[in-house]
């Protein structure tokens, strides 16, 4: 519990000194490409038991040479276009050396000095419940580099089954294709960082570049965090390997608070690598005070990667064909606000429902109206303990029909119809159902007066109390009348009519 208290106190302090300390955040996003085979070998990437996806190259068999997978280049070119990067005529591969048990060659083939794409700009909306208004943010993309993934090390502790503690290595992932996206340190808040990752994720999935499941490691994020004081750069730390949006958010905020606490006590932040634990706290990973020298060297077994004009065209044409991502379409074409557009696009069932609604709806029905009634629908369904959103296309059609008719129905009638259709097994078109039961809203004052007169006469005792000005009785009488009309008269209309009735007598 102590952490939460500490976070709270520092958060308050941050606000009071906001003008002096400014968080500076840069991201490195490792995107696992969803190609069928690995980056430099023809080994399939499909899921399999440990060490069943390993060809000689993947385990660094001496003498076996890398062979670049054309599909990885194609995906990189598409990604470059999405992030508005410049693609130089040629790029090159480098070896980055370090010893790690799950990196079999003793080096990773990556692109250091001559990446496949660089100098990009990527814009996205930043929104949050604590923000008054969503805003548009543009970040600089420094480079996109094609590189190999590592294998995985599994540490076993001592047990009866497996004996003494040991480390096992699974090379299935070794050599899979990654694109590392490096941004400039231009994020100022954790919210900006996660909106970037969320937006990026939706685009990568839409354009078939990455499967986008963060918990499976398809996207892994490193964040460089520092606090600048009065525009003077601070020492940065690096949070490695975050694989959920939530972790990115809490870990960056934790790190900002931690550094602020150190700095405001006149301490020194040390340049180090940290990991985020399950609570989103950052903990030191390894000593980075002695900077690792990766001893970069040009990969001699691969010629320069010269980008053909035809490849660029193919990438462009494919992007064109794939069109806008769902969240962009919802936002730019249908008119949803940025936050809802992303939220809907992130939930497959919700997205299906909304797409159906959009298909069925009258042109006049707006995105805001759909959102408003979706909220009402959600409450109704939760109360009735049925799963939201509804799965059927039929329901979506009735739902949008009802929205189109919202001004010809009373609010209560509409909610009631929603409840009936969302929980029952109605197959009748909702318009026919309304017609058959005469559920249209009654607006004619004469008609409403009739209902009022009838009820006031019927329950003389209650009517007396109403006359004497008893407020509760007034409301009871009003509700009786609404119910008597099968909820076809709007509450306010009844109230006006009762008052009219009282004035007349």
């Amino acid at each position, binding site marked *: 519990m102590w952490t939460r208290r500490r976070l709270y106190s520092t958060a308050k302090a941050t606000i009071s000194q906001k003008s002096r300390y400014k968080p500076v955040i840069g991201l490195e996003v490792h995107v696992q490409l969803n190609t069928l085979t690995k980056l430099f070998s023809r080994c399939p990437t499909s899921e399999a038991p440990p060490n069943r996806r390993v060809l*000689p190259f993947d385990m660094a*068999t001496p003498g*076996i040479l*890398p062979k670049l997978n054309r599909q990885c280049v194609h995906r990189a070119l598409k990604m470059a276009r999405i992030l508005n990067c410049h693609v130089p005529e040629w790029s090159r591969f480098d070896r980055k050396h370090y*010893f790690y048990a799950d990196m*079999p*060659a003793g*080096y990773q083939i990556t692109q250091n000095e001559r990446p496949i794409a660089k100098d990009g700009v990527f814009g996205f909306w930043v929104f949050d419940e604590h923000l008054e208004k969503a805003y548009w943010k543009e970040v600089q993309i420094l480079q996109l580099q094609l590189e190999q993934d590592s294998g995985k090390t599994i540490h076993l502790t001592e047990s009866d089954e497996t004996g003494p503690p040991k480390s096992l290595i699974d090379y299935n992932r070794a050599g899979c294709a990654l694109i590392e996206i490096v941004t400039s340190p231009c994020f100022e808040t954790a919210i900006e960082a996660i909106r970037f990752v969320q937006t990026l994720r939706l685009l990568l999935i839409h354009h078939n570049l990455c499967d986008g499941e963060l918990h499976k490691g398809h996207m892994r994020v490193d964040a460089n965090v520092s606090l600048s004081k009065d525009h003077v750069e601070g020492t940065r730390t690096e949070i490695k390997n975050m694989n959920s949006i939530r972790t990115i958010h809490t870990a960056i905020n934790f790190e900002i608070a931690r550094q602020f606490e150190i700095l405001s006590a006149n301490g020194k932040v040390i340049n180090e690598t940290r990991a985020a634990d399950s609570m989103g706290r950052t903990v030191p990973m390894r000593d980075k005070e002695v900077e690792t020298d990766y001893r970069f*060297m040009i990969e001699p077994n691969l010629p320069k990667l010269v980008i053909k004009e035809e490849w660029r065209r193919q990438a462009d044409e494919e992007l064109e064909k794939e069109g806008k991502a769902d969240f962009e379409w919802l936002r730019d074409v249908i008119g949803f606000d940025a936050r809802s557009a992303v939220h809907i696009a992130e939930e497959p069932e919700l997205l299906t429902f909304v797409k159906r609604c959009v298909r069925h709806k009258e042109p006049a029905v707006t995105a805001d109206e759909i959102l408003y009634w979706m909220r009402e629908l959600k409450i109704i369904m939760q109360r009735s303990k049925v799963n939201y959103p509804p799965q059927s296309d039929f329901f979506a059609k009735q739902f949008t029909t009802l929205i189109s008719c919202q001004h010809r129905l009373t609010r209560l009638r509409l909610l009631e119809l929603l409840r009936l259709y969302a929980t029952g097994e109605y197959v009748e078109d909702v318009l026919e159902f309304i017609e058959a039961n005469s559920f249209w809203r009654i607006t004619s004052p004469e008609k409403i007066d009739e209902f009022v007169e009838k009820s006031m006469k019927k329950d003389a005792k209650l009517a007396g109390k109403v006359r004497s000005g008893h407020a509760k009785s007034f409301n009871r009488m009003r509700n009786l009348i609404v119910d008597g009309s099968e909820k076809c008269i709007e509450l306010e209309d009844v109230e006006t009519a009762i008052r009219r009735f009282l004035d007349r007598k």
Partner: protein
Amino acid sequence: MHRIEAAIEKAVRYRPHGIFISETFEQARQQARDAIERGVTPFPVAIKDCFLTANTSTTCASQMLDNYTPPVNATIVDRIIANGGCVIGKTNLDEFCMGTSSALGHFGPVKSAVAEITSDDWLIPGGSSGGSAVAIQTGIVDLALGSDTGGSTRNPAAFNGVFGFKPTYGVLSRHGLIPLVNSLDAPSIFARSAEKCWEFLELSKGIDSADSTSIDLPELPRIETVKGLKVGVPLEYHNECLSEEAWKHWNRVVNFLKKEGASIQLLSLPTTRFSLACYSVIAAADVASNMARYDSVAYGHRSAKDNNTHELYASSRSESLNDVVRRRIFAGNYFLMKQYRKKYLEKALKIRRIINDELLNAFKDVDIIVTPTATGTAPKYSELRGTLFSKEDDDDYFTQAANLAGIPSISVPVGACEDGLPIGVQLMANRLKDRTLCDVAHILGNR
């Protein structure tokens, strides 16, 4: 079939020379039967033990790979076998191809068969492909595969009086060749005639989809005479290390070519004298990188000292790699360090470019360049040990430039010296002129 049995018999007879690290007689017999079935004439071959052979150990003469059996064949091994080659055995070499004496490998030295061997001294066969050279010289096999990074085929060819041919970089696939220096390595051919060298090149050349640096060799017409051929003689190859005998034979060859109608031009290749320094830096960097994979995790020698991962790496490597290899790894890591890369590696790469340009420029004026292959004849082991193997570097001087420029080069046996030991002369041609090179070597060999 008879030829294969004869080869096996000879291989057994020459066992004291340490030619083979592993003998693969049964496989050779099987390959011969398979070849006959396919209607291909079988012939015996020897493969340097730095080419991967599936189901047969591949050691690079190192304790590190003592028990290593690769999962696949090198492309070139596959191609040779498909054309009738029957692998008699994997030949001995300097550990991981580092050296020119074939004397310090984990499985013992290769001893030349050109002179008698005594209990504690022998004639050095040259290296690093010493085993393959001796396998040809003794007549065990018709084709021996070597590798050549700075002269590792041409040098032992000269010392053993056989032909050693390093083709243009990329003409023979490197897929399955355990690398020394990736941008200099060339699978190379030992044979007893230049014609055979060419023949073996033809059956194993061509683009290999597994090697992105492989290239096709364009067809060239065969030349029957050197009449009208422009032959360059570079002055800088006459240096202080060159022996009187070597100089004499070099001269003799040039005179012969002149007599046959070639025009002789003196050339200057001033940057060649930096080739050794340039090579040392580039090679060390690649070695450090290429050797990083020998961490004993997935394969290779594993030390018993395994308290933690880094101790395991360090002791496995220290225990199983010899001094030469470890020194180069050490130097290479130094050259690759952030603060030294610019100072050494990048400079060496620039010098390489100059050496390359200088050679290619020379080929605007001449068709062939003739030089000695080594400083002289093969030394004795005792002599070499006495100089702490520094003579190795003197010999490298003549051969390295061809690797730095990726051009084809062949060592041609041109006779014997007064002591009866064979000596070779080196021919170089422009990139992709491998055909012309072999033709001139053939004329020279038949003189």
